[in-house]
């Protein structure tokens, strides 16, 4: 789809403490919990770059980068 932005979801599992905030607040469920409740990418295409996950993550463990 022309014009649709794409995003890279970068998760740092060394920092992630599995609090669940990022995926709880992700409006598109582009991300979700892994087996140990850490953040993991469910469907990167769904990401709309709203940065909710990044803003709520207390642990500097998830960042969103726009792919140009």
């Amino acid at each position, binding site marked *: 789809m022309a014009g649709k932005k794409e995003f890279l979801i970068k998760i740092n599992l060394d920092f992630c403490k599995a609090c*669940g905030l990022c995926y709880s607040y992700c409006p598109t469920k582009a991300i979700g919990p892994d087996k140990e409740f850490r953040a993991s990418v469910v469907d990167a295409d769904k990401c709309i770059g709203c940065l909710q996950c990044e*803003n*709520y993550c207390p642990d500097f463990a998830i960042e969103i*980068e726009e792919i140009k």
Partner: protein
Amino acid sequence: MFDYAEYLRLDKLPHIWCYGCGNGIILKGAIRAIDKMGWEKDSVMAVSGIGCSSRATGYLDFNSLHTLHGRAIPFATGIKMAKPELNVIVFTGDGDATAIGGNHFIHAARRNINLTVILFNNNIYGMTGGQYSPTTPKGYFASTAPYGHIDPSFDIVELALGAGATFVARSTVANPREMEKVIHEGLKNKGFSLIEVVSNCHERFGKRNKMKSPYEMIEWIRSRSVSKVKAESMEAEEREGKIITGIFRQETRPEYVETYDELVLKKARGGI
């Protein structure tokens, strides 16, 4: 992409805070707001007291000082008096700033000395295990309130206003972008600025009060939040228990050290 790493001492991460602790959300908001100021890192001085929240300074790649419980503001005052060119930011908690440190808080506000105080209000003493703080809401439980808490809370915003602060705002971790904005406004104020950020401590507060997860707690905060504008049209009873957010004062008054330099240094030199 915002580059947090630029402002972090990465080797100190992961931080000691519990999973989902609001402290991390505030720290990030503060970093983004500081970034907007365009300050040299060398010119920023981060000062904190003692508490979970006060550990923030250790993670920031600025000049940083972790002081005594309650005393961040007078340490910061001395630094500002010695080197006014430093941009001094105080990271503190509800216990640190309004319990043991309450006096320093109101006096710095009175003087209008150019410090920006970012107050992490999680309504509890997190670090020592969940004793009630001056902002623990009535009726809730704490380790020293086993039968339910009876103390009326400080309205920290009212307290700062009453003491004479020139910038006073409140935000919450439920709204990280708004928080970032008001911190930024506070940083811009040349004078004493107080930004209270209501935060979640599920570990020491939530678990005792039927909110086990960070998410539940943040939603609890959100559910009680109303903007200042909206609150103005509410009845007193309705406002009860609400977290009213927004900027409550934004005023220009002479800054303390500048006044000192203009009046006292000048007169002293002229006079002697």
